């Protein structure tokens, strides 16, 4: 048997890495201090109110779940459609998914106000609630992704002296297709239910519409793989090694471009339905209120439509653009920004328009503009630092671009 000495991967402390780890440390420090203040003082230190109880954190939560959708989309491509050449990016897609879903849970723990009761949905079932279904789906899916990713962790050099764990990891790898299909089913549920949460808020004149679940899941399927593609390119630039075949990444970009076209089609029909076919005095008043208090129109047309759809579609689908990796990464970041702005518009703008009657209140709440407090930005920066840390450590220490078979051959 040929033996190969594995080169130990260590960090070389160049000025660049020191700056990078300093930045991550600073972001994490700001995030942890902000989180501790929120835990000690409660949500009163935020700018969240009875009129706008969901803000920046829920926007991050919804966005990171959508952007982590590359895991289930690419799993479907490999395990349902049997297109085996995408197998080389599955591990990275699952890593992006794990980072996205854990970020979502981190912000949710901050947002629920009583983090000590995070386990209640698992014990005290409320089958009437879409949020209960989402809680179950997100936690189950995160568990599935962690099990899917476990073989990658035990293949790292930290487990060189644990052959039992390695064998267990390889066994686990064999059930990956079943896990992927289970994860796909759960994703089909919660990626649409996240939109349904807004769809069932009947009292909100703009956001009560059956198209919300469809738009949420289609946008996630379109943009999630593009984010995975962008991460693959960035890791390649940072490490200086070819990670995934460029033609494969271009195919993913084309898929995302077509997905964004489908999303745009549904979105424009939806816009017409709300503002023209199904316009009511309530929805017209809501739009006037939104434009008085927020830059809603600018955010929609420039943020969601131009940067979120038009620009990435052109970059992903036109051959002269999608041959250039830098443009593909720019397109993916632009599409991700579009998702972020869309989730912000749905969450915050939807709530700024007050309900005419709210249980427990005898009067109509006033419309209220919302700007995140510094402490909310602090937590958001901490989450960004956490994502940077996950990708830095994973790309350095974990075999995310090697298949299990290749690793077996090496050992």
């Amino acid at each position, binding site marked *: 048997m040929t033996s190969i000495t594995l080169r130990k991967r260590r960090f070389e402390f160049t000025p660049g890495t020191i700056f990078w780890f300093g930045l991550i440390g600073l972001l994490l420090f700001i995030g942890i201090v902000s989180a501790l203040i929120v835990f000690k003082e409660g949500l009163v230190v935020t700018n969240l109110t009875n009129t706008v109880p969901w803000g920046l954190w829920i926007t991050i939560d919804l966005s990171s779940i959508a952007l982590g959708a590359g895991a289930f989309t690419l799993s479907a491509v490999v395990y*349902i459609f049997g297109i*085996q050449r995408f197998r080389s990016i599955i591990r990275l897609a699952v890593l992006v998914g794990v980072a996205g879903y854990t970020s979502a849970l981190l912000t949710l723990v901050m947002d629920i106000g009583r983090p000590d009761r995070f386990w209640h949905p698992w014990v005290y079932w409320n089958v009437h609630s879409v949020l209960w279904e989402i809680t179950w789906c997100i936690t189950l899916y995160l568990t599935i992704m962690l099990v899917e990713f476990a073989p990658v962790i035990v293949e790292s050099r930290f487990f060189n002296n644990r052959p039992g764990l390695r064998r267990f990891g390889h066994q686990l790898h064999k059930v990956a297709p079943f896990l992927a299909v289970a994860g796909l089913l759960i994703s089909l549920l919660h990626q649409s239910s996240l939109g349904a949460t807004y769809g069932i808020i009947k009292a909100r004149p703009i956001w009560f519409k059956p198209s919300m679940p469809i738009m949420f899941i289609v946008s996630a399927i379109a943009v999630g793989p593009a984010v995975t593609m962008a991460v693959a390119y960035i890791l390649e630039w940072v490490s200086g090694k070819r990670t995934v075949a460029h033609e494969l990444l271009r195919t993913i970009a084309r898929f995302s471009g077509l997905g964004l076209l489908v999303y745009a089609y549904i979105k424009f029909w939806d816009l017409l339905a709300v503002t023209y076919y199904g316009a009511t005095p309530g929805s017209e008043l809501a739009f006037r209120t939104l434009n008085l208090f927020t830059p809603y129109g600018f955010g929609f047309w420039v943020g969601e439509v131009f940067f979120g759809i038009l620009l990435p579609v052109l970059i992903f689908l036109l051959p002269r653009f999608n041959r250039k990796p830098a443009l593909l990464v720019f397109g993916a970041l632009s599409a991700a920004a579009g998702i972020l702005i869309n989730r912000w518009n749905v969450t915050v703008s939807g709530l700024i328009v007050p309900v005419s009657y709210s249980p427990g209140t005898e009067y109509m709440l006033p419309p209220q503009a919302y700007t995140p407090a510094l402490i909310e930005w602090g937590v958001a920066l901490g989450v960004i630092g956490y994502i940077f840390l996950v990708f830095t450590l994973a790309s350095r220490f974990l075999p995310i671009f090697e298949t299990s078979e290749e690793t077996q051959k090496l050992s």
Partner: protein
Amino acid sequence: MSNTIANPFIITLMLVGRCLVPLGIMLIISHYLHKWGWITDNNHADGDVHNPPLL
């Protein structure tokens, strides 16, 4: 007004409609794409390089 979401029939219908039907549609599409030769097993060569070893 009765709450329809507590109805076991509705819950089952939602599970089938939102979960199993899309999976079934994907499997049928996949079957025909393979049958018509749009997806082949030997499609590794499409990429510019096969994954180069990292070591």
